[in-house]
C-alpha cells in the first residue's frame, strides 16, 4: 500500500488519511468475471485518484476539466442556435402582420398599421404606426393597450436612447409622448430599438388594415453566404475543441502510467488499470461537464449585449434543445473515456513500469493525405456548381468536406513534423537538443499543436469567407457612398406636398442640394380586343419647371409643358402625340383600368443632367409639369427625392431624416451612409480573433503542461547539465526551439489549408478570392505569441528543475 499511497497522495495528510478507505485491489482470482459492478468500482477508484492526487493531481484534473468545459460550453452554444433562431423568429412572427391578402373591412377589431422604420446614427429603429378603427383593436405581444393618439410605447433600449443626451435629435424625429415600455414578449432582443405609436392621420396607401397580429409565412431562409459562414463557424469552433478535449484527457499521462504501474505491483490486472485510468479521465470530464454548463449559463448572460448579423436575443433564448443537451451530457464523458482507452492502446502497464509494445509508429502518408483529398473532392464540385444553393445534401457535403480538410491537417501534421525533423542535422547545441528530442518523440507536442493548426486553418478560412463577402458589400457601398447623398422616397400625396418637402429639406442644416419629383410607371395603351401586351416600360417624372430644371436642361418651360428626355433606348411608345396608359399594369395580369393620356404634340426634348444608372442619376423617359399630368392618375405615384449634404456638418444625415419624418413618417430612405455590414463584419471579425486567441491560449496551456511534465521527468538530467556548467540560456533556447518547430510547421500547414479552404468557399459564393494578409499575419502572430508564451512560462520550472536537488539519489 505504501507505493500506492505515495503516488496517490503526494503531499501527506489527506492522501494518508484516505488510504485506509481505499479498498485493496481485488486479485484477479477473487472476481474472475468482469461485471458492471467491477467496472463501476474501478471507475470510482480512478475518480478517487483523480480527486485525491494532491496539488499536481488537481492541476491536471483542473486542466482536463477546463478543456472539456470549454468544449461543452461551445457544444451547448452550438446546439442552442436552432432553438435560439426559433424563438427569435417566433417572436418576430407573433408581433408582425405585413398585410392580409384580403384587407378586412373597418370594424371594432381592426387597426390601420404601417411600418415607419428609420435609422439613427447607423442603428436601425423599427417603428410601427397604428390607428385603431374601433374599441377592440388587435394588440401585438408585449403590449397591454395600444398607445393613445400622439403617444408611443417604446422598447427599453429605445427609451434609454431617447432619455440620453445623445438621443436629442431622435426625440425630435419621434415626436410622440412616451406612454410606456414594450415588454420582452414584443421584442426580438434586449438591445432592439423599436416603438409603436398611434397616428391620428394614418391612412391608405401607407397604412393597411389588419385584424390580428402574427404572420403566417415563414421567414425566408438565410442567404447562402451566411449559411456557409454559420456552418464553417460551427466546424471551425468544434474541431479545435474536439482536439483539445482529446489532448486534455491525456494531460499527466506519464504520471498516471507510473501510478498504474504501482497498482499493478499490488495486484491489479491490465484491464483493471485501463478501467481505473478511464475513471480518472471520467472524473475530469464530469467536472468539465458541470463547468461547461456553468460557463454556458454564465456566458449566455452576454447574449443580451451581443448583436451578430442583426440578431440580438435574450439570455433565456440561448438554450439547447433537451435532446441535444442530453446527448452532450452523455457523449462528452463517454468520449473522454474512449480517448483514454485509445491513448492506452499498445501500452501495457507492467508492475515495474510501462511497456510500449507498439513498434515506433511509422507515419504513413497515404491515409493522412486521403483525408484532405476526400475533403477537397467533396468541396471542389460545390465550388463549380455556382451559385451555391442551400440544400441539405450541399450542407452535409460542405460540412463533411471542410471537416475532412481540417482533420486532414491534424493527420498530416505528425507526419510533416517527423519528415522535417528527421532531415534536420547539426546546428548549435540548443537546436540539436530540440531536434533530437522531437526526433525521438514528437507525439505530445504535435498533438497539442494540431489544435492550433485546426483553429488557425478554420479561422483563416472563415476570415477569407468574411472578407470576400465583405469585399462585395464594401465595393458596392464605396460606389454609392462616394457621393454624400441620401435618397428619400414614399407614396406621393400630390405635388404641393412634394414641393413642401423639397423646400423643407432645402432649409435643413447641412443640406447642399435637393432634387426631386413625383414619378410613376407608364406603358402603352392596351389594344382593344387583345390581351394587354406588356406592362410598364417607361418612367414619367412630374415636377414644377424649377424642379425639372434641376433634372434636365429644358430650355424654356411653363406649367403645362411636357418633355421627352434623351435617355438611351427609350421606348418607341413614348413619342409626341402618342397616347399612353398612366395606370399601366405592373404585372401582366394586373386587372386595372387604363388611364389614357396623350403626350402633347408640342413636347420637346430635354437633356438629362445625370442620365444613366446608379446613385445620383435620373433615368426618366418623360418629364411633365403638374398641370400637364395629374399625378393622381398614375399607378402608385411615388415621391422621390435626392438630397446632397455636406459631410462636414455634424449629424447632417440625422437632420435630413428628421425633416423627412416631420413631412411624412412613412418616407423611406435609401442611402449608403451607414454600412450595416461594416459593423457586423467588425464584430464577427473581433469575435473570430478573440475565439482564435482563446483557443490558442488554451492550447498553449496544454503545451506548457506537457513541456513542464517533460521537464519534471528529466530534472535529474537537467541538474547534471547544470553541474556541467550549461548556460540557462542554452536550455531555454532548446525549449523554445522544441516548441517553435512543431508550431511553425503547424502554422504553415494551417496557412496552406486555410487559404485553400477559404478559396474554395469563396468560389462557392461566386466571389473573388481575396487573401486578407494582415489578418493572416495576425493569426500567425497569435501563433508566434503562443510559442513565446509557452517558452516564457516554461522557463521558471526549467530553472527550478536545474537546481542541484535533482542530483540527490533519494
Amino acid at each position, binding site marked *: 500500500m505504501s507505493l500506492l499511497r505515495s503516488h496517490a497522495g503526494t503531499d501527506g495528510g489527506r492522501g494518508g488519511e484516505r488510504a485506509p478507505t481505499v479498498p485493496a485491489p481485488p486479485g484477479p482470482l477473487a472476481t474472475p468475471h468482469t461485471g458492471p459492478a467491477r467496472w463501476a468500482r474501478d471507475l470510482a477508484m480512478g475518480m478517487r485518484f483523480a480527486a485525491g492526487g494532491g496539488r499536481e493531481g488537481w492541476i491536471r484534473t483542473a486542466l482536463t476539466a477546463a478543456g472539456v468545459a470549454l468544449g461543452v460550453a461551445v457544444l451547448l452554444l452550438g446546439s442552442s442556435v436552432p432553438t435560439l433562431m426559433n424563438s427569435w423568429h417566433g417572436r418576430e412572427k407573433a408581433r408582425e402582420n405585413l398585410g392580409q391578402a384580403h384587407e378586412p373591412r373597418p370594424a371594432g377589431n381592426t387597426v390601420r398599421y404601417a411600418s415607419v422604420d428609420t435609422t439613427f446614427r447607423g442603428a436601425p429603429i423599427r417603428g410601427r404606426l397604428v390607428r385603431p378603427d374601433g374599441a377592440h383593436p388587435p394588440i401585438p405581444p408585449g403590449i397591454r393597450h395600444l398607445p393613445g393618439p400622439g403617444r408611443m410605447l417604446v422598447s427599453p433600449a429605445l427609451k434609454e436612447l431617447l432619455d440620453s443626451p445623445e438621443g436629442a435629435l431622435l426625440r425630435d424625429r419621434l415626436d410622440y409622448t412616451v406612454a410606456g415600455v414594450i415588454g420582452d414578449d414584443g421584442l426580438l432582443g434586449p438591445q432592439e430599438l423599436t416603438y409603436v405609436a398611434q397616428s391620428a392621420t394614418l391612412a391608405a396607401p401607407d397604412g393597411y388594415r389588419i385584424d390580428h397580429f402574427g404572420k403566417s409565412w415563414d421567414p425566408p431562409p438565410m442567404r447562402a453566404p451566411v449559411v456557409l459562414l454559420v456552418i464553417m463557424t460551427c466546424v471551425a469552433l468544434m474541431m479545435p475543441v474536439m482536439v483539445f478535449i482529446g489532448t486534455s484527457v491525456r494531460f499527466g499521462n506519464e504520471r498516471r502510467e507510473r501510478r498504474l504501474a504501482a497498482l499493478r505491483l499490488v495486484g491489479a490486472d491490465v484491464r483493471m488499470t485501463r478501467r481505473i485510468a478511464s475513471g480518472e479521465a471520467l472524473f475530469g470530464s464530469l467536472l468539465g461537464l458541470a463547468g461547461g454548463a456553468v460557463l454556458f449559463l454564465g456566458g449566455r448572460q452576454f447574449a443580451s449585449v451581443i448583436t451578430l448579423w442583426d440578431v440580438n436575443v435574450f439570455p433565456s433564448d440561448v438554450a439547447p434543445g433537451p435532446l441535444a443537451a442530453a446527448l452532450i451530457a452523455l457523449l462528452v464523458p463517454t468520449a473522454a473515456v474512449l480517448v483514454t482507452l485509445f491513448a492506452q492502446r499498445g501500452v501495457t502497464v507492467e508492475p515495474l513500469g510501462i511497456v510500449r509494445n507498439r513498434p515506433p509508429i511509422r507515419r504513413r502518408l497515404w491515409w493522412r493525405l486521403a483525408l484532405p483529398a476526400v475533403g477537397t473532392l467533396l468541396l471542389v464540385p460545390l465550388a463549380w456548381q455556382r451559385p451555391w444553393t442551400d440544400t441539405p445534401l450541399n450542407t452535409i457535403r460542405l460540412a463533411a468536406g471542410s471537416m475532412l480538410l481540417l482533420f486532414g491537417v491534424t493527420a498530416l501534421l505528425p507526419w510533416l513534423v517527423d519528415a522535417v525533423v528527421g532531415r534536420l542535422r547539426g546546428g548549435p*547545441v540548443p537546436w540539436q*537538443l530540440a531536434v*533530437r528530442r522531437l526526433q*525521438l518523440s514528437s507525439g505530445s507536442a504535435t498533438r497539442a499543436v494540431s489544435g492550433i493548426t485546426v483553429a488557425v486553418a478554420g479561422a483563416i478560412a472563415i476570415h477569407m469567407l468574411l472578407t470576400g463577402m465583405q469585399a462585395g458589400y464594401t465595393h458596392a457601398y464605396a460606389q454609392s457612398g462616394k457621393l454624400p447623398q441620401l435618397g428619400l422616397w414614399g407614396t406621393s400625396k400630390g405635388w404641393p406636398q412634394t414641393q413642401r418637402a423639397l423646400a423643407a429639406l432645402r432649409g435643413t442644416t447641412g443640406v447642399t442640394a435637393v432634387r426631386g419629383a413625383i414619378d410613376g410607371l407608364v406603358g402603352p395603351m392596351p389594344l382593344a380586343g387583345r390581351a394587354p401586351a406588356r406592362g410598364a416600360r417607361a418612367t414619367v417624372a412630374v415636377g414644377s419647371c424649377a424642379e425639372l430644371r434641376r433634372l434636365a436642361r429644358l430650355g424654356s418651360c411653363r406649367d403645362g409643358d411636357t418633355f421627352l428626355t434623351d435617355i438611351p433606348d427609350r421606348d418607341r411608345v413614348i413619342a409626341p402625340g402618342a397616347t399612353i396608359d398612366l395606370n399601366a399594369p405592373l404585372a401582366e395580369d394586373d386587372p386595372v383600368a387604363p388611364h389614357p393620356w396623350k403626350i402633347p404634340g408640342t413636347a420637346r426634348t430635354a437633356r438629362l443632367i445625370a442620365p444613366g444608372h446608379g446613385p445620383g442619376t435620373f433615368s426618366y423617359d418623360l418629364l411633365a409639369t403638374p398641370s400637364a399630368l395629374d399625378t393622381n392618375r398614375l399607378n402608385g405615384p411615388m415621391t422621390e427625392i435626392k438630397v446632397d449634404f455636406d459631410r462636414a456638418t455634424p449629424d447632417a444625415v440625422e437632420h435630413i431624416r428628421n425633416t423627412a419624418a416631420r413631412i411624412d413618417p412613412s418616407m423611406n430612405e435609401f442611402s449608403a451612409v451607414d454600412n450595416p455590414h461594416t459593423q457586423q463584419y467588425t464584430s464577427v471579425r473581433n469575435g473570430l480573433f478573440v475565439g482564435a486567441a482563446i483557443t490558442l491560449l488554451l492550447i498553449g496551456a496544454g503545451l506548457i503542461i506537457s513541456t513542464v511534465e517533460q521537464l519534471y521527468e528529466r530534472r535529474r538530467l537537467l541538474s*547534471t547539465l547544470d*553541474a556541467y556548467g*550549461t548556460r540557462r540560456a542554452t536550455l531555454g533556447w532548446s525549449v523554445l526551439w522544441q516548441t517553435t518547430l512543431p508550431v511553425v510547421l503547424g502554422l504553415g500547414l494551417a496557412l496552406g489549408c486555410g487559404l485553400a479552404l477559404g478559396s474554395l468557399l469563396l468560389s462557392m459564393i461566386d466571389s473573388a478570392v481575396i487573401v486578407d494578409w494582415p489578418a493572416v499575419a495576425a493569426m500567425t502572430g497569435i501563433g508566434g505569441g503562443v510559442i513565446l508564451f509557452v517558452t516564457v512560462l516554461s522557463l521558471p520550472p526549467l530553472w527550478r528543475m536545474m537546481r*542541484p536537488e535533482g542530483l540527490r539519489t533519494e
Partner: protein
Amino acid sequence: MTPEGSLLAAEGLYKSYGVTPALDGAEFSIHPGEVVAVMGPSGSGKSTLLHCLAGIISPDSGTVRYGPHTLTGMSDAQRSALRRTEFGFVFQFGQLVPELTCLENVALPLRLNGTKRKQAEQQAREWMERLEVESVHGQRPGEISGGQGQRIAVARALATRPRVIFADEPTGALDSLNGERVLTLLTNAARDTNAAVVLVTHEARVAAYSDREIVVRDGKVKDMLAGLI
C-alpha cells in the same frame, strides 16, 4: 589549513537545509593528480560537500578555493563557466541526454565550451575509444547497457580535459565487474591527465581506488591521512 600546492581546497564550510546542518565546518583539499575518496554513511553530507566543492551550490559560510580563484565569491555565471571549463562530472545515473546519440553526449560539454561540432565529435570519438565504447557511438543511451552508459558518462567527464573530476557514486548502479572497469578507466585516465578526482562513495572497494580517503560524519570531515600522521 590549506595544504601547500593544493589544487582545490575548502575550509569552514557550513551549509544547512532548513534546520539540519548538512555541512558543519567541513574542510577539504586535493592535489593535482590525486584521487580522494569521500566516505561516510548516508545523509552525512558527502554529496553536499561535493556540490559545494564543485560550485554547484554555495555554502552558507566558508570558502572554496580553486587555484587562484575563490569559488565562494563568484557569481552563478562565473561558477558555471568554471564548471564548464575546469571540472568534469560523473553521477550515478540519469545523466545522459536520452535524445542525443552517445557520441553527441560525449561531445556535449565540448560544444558547450564553444568547440565546433566536427572537432568536438572528433575528440569525443577519441575518448570513447579510450573508454572502449567506440562501438556504440551512434546509439542512444536507452539502447546501451548500464556499464556502457557509465563509460560514456566518464568519457564525457574527461572530454574537456578537466583539472578536477567529481564522481558521485559513479558505480552505484553497476555490478561489481562493470563498476571496476569504470573505476579503473576513470582513475587511469585521470592519472594520465594529472587530473584530481573527488570520488564520493560509501563502498570501501570503490574507495580503494583512491590515494587517500576522508570521512564525512554529521557534516564534519575527518581526514584519515592527517589522523594517521
